């Protein structure tokens, strides 16, 4: 052929001689990077979402999420129907208490126990077991029925009998009759609180204080918290709570998803290597294209699955308010998730998830390229799994000290940024610059890892001998 071509080859010869193992990085395949990556992404995506295991696992996860969302409502439904109403009969032998007597006293007790101005009338209200039913039904009766009432408590037809007396020094004394086990009786503690209130009011009344004076005596002191830290001082509590819930849920999501799909990448690479299709692929596309296509394809499939889970999960949660309203009445106070107030946290969750996945997936791909068979993948990726677990666990400590210096430092380390930053954002809010800063750090880390992984991939994919040691790895990586 032409002399020119021969000359250029000779120039390249020495460089070529240095290469021990080099999969073609030829110019021809490079020109079609976008087309090739697109094709590989399409194949990986379709292959994954049509896999039976993928569909089944998606359905299982979705069912679990839906069940989890409905559990509080279901529990509440059962407890509210089985524990219909706690009937309390009050026998007042103490006369006027804190200026209250008869119905007024019953109404006060009802208000204190039910937390609302509920129906605490002199007569029992048996017909009222509809949605607006308060947990306690208060009835006041006279002392001559005491014996039969005690009998009713014993046989279970009456839940609680409360007898009010005065001791010789005029202090109130309450006797609480119940059939239930008193060690974990939640009603008992509520009645104890009530007893304390009654006693205070009664004592104050006997000392001759007016109701106004009494209320001033027990008024809460003025107490204002001023947080001079950056960022979060004017975030409403509800938003912090919602952000926090999303951070924890997102944290779990990131951990599971990165592990699951990262493993998918490693297994996919090992599968191609095991089935030797790699030999055909590397002569059609460059190792970088293969790696990028695989990671993006599997990542997109994972994102689809996660998006379904999150969307259906949020949908199921939002359904709880109207459902609880229908079941338990208007002011049932179910979870009201204000989506707009947490949209930024959600957006950051998405960004950190994608970045975290890309970072780990490049390394998972390299590990997959180093093993000989699929069953060795688990061992090979163990160090990566360990790295991910550390970030996951540390993020839980971060809940208690989100602004500690060590926590900040850890959240800047790209491998741990996704989980720890999310918790920090959820728990305390961070300085605005920390978000772009960590994102930039992660992008740099992804770039570095991608370069290293592409090199490992390049010689790893066709190496069927022994797994190389670290020293050999470093040596091979330095080769161009």
């Amino acid at each position: 052929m032409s002399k020119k071509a021969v000359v250029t080859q000779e120039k390249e010869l020495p460089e070529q001689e240095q290469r021990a193992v080099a999969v073609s990085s030829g110019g021809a395949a490079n020109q079609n990077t976008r087309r090739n990556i697109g094709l590989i992404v399409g194949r990986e995506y379709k292959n994954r979402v049509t896999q039976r295991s993928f569909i089944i696992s998606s359905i299982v996860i979705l069912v679990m999420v839906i069940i989890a969302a409905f559990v509080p409502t279901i529990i509440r439904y059962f407890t509210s129907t089985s524990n219909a109403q706690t009937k309390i009969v009050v026998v007042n032998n103490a006369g006027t208490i804190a200026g209250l007597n008869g119905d007024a006293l019953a109404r006060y007790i009802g208000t204190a126990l039910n937390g609302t101005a509920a129906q605490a009338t002199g007569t029992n209200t048996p017909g009222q077991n509809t949605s607006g039913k308060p947990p306690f039904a208060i009835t006041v009766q006279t002392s001559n029925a005491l014996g039969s009432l005690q009998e009713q408590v014993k046989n279970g037809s009456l839940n609680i009998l409360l007898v009010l007396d005065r001791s010789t020094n005029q202090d109130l004394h309450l006797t609480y009759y119940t059939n239930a086990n008193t060690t974990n009786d939640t009603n008992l503690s509520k009645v104890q609180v009530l007893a304390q209130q009654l006693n205070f009011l009664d004592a104050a009344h006997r000392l001759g204080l007016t109701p106004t004076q009494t209320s001033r005596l027990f008024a809460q002191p003025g107490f204002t918290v001023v947080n001079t830290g950056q960022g979060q001082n004017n975030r409403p509590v509800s938003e912090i709570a919602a952000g926090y819930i999303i951070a924890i849920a997102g944290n779990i999501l990131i951990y599971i998803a990165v592990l699951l799909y990262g493993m998918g990448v490693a297994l996919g690479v090992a599968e191609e290597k095991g089935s030797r299709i790699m030999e055909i692929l590397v002569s059609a596309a460059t190792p970088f294209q293969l790696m990028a296509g695989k990671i993006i394809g599997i990542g997109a499939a994972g994102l689809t699955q996660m998006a379904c889970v999150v969307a259906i999960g949020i949908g199921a949660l939002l359904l709880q308010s109207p459902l609880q309203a229908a079941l338990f009445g208007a002011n049932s106070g179910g979870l009201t998730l204000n989506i707009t107030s947490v949209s930024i946290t959600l957006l950051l969750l998405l960004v950190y998830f994608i970045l975290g996945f890309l970072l780990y997936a490049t390394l998972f791909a390299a590990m997959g390229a180093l093993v000989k068979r699929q069953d060795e993948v688990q061992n090979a990726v163990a160090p990566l799994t360990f790295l991910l677990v550390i970030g996951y666990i540390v993020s839980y400590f971060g809940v208690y000290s989100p602004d500690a210096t060590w926590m900040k430092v850890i959240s800047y380390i790209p491998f741990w940024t996704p989980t720890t930053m999310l918790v920090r954002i959820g728990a305390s809010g961070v300085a605005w610059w920390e978000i772009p800063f960590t994102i930039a750090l992660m992008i740099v880390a992804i770039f570095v890892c991608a370069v290293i992984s592409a090199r490992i991939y390049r010689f790893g994919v066709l190496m069927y001998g022994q797994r190389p040691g670290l020293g050999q790895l470093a040596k091979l990586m330095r080769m161009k």
Partner: protein
Amino acid sequence: MGLVVEHINKSFAQFQVIKDLSMEVKEGTIFGFLGANGAGKTTTMRMILDILRPDSGRITWNGKDVHEVPRKNWGYLPEERGLYPKMRVDEQLLFLARLNGVSKQAAEKELDEWLGRFQINANRKKKVEELSKGNQQKVQFLATILHDPTILVMDEPFSGLDPVNANVLKEAFLEMHSRGKTIIFSTHQLEQVEELCQDIVIINKGQSIVQGSVQEVKRQQGRNVARLKLDNDPEARWLDTLEGVQVTKRRQDYIEMHIQANLNPNLIVEAALQHGGIISRFELAEPSLTDIFIEQVGMSALPDAPSVLSA
């Protein structure tokens, strides 16, 4: 010019797999690449395809370094199954063809034609793992040629095929040949080599031991084969004393011997008559490639070399 391999060497760790191997494959020919298991055939093919690089020496296609030749000019059929087991036949072939730069429409058209010709149209929507071994091999062959490459490198394309399918593949080979493709293939079925190939090389332990056109190789052996049958003397022990004759097989139906190229075969007939033999068969033949292969490679190469080589 074609494909020229010049003095290549390749070692894995301390083990030298290829030693100073040179060969030339003329453009548009079918080239047989022979050698025992572990002789270095697969490694050499990988170097030709620029999947591996030789430690020294170089490989060129029409004077151009192989790594500069556009990828779509190469078609590679690996020895082991190189397909996605869980992917549909048609999707798989389209994917590979498009990865090699064929447009979707063109790839579909080619695919329809070839699936029909190979009689696997009924299986086009099946997963590869559901096909028989023979059909898988046909799919593998299609994966190699669908993007219309110039050079086909095939590692044991005939393994696992029954005679009917082997024939289908052989015809496809010949068609590729008539389209001007260059085909390099390795095989252990040497009759096919005699039938298909213009040139061959036999390598042993990474070194070329015999190469040239099939005719040349046979002639190079400097001998012919004669087969003799005597009705009254099946052993014909006197043959062992004849100069220039070496008995290789004493079979029930005939005795086979190598005779030196310059020996007049009539001498054997005369000697047989002298010993009172009744000749019922006498024929002269060229040595088969099988004979040459066994003689050249010998018993030493038969034990499998370490797995690195055959991988």
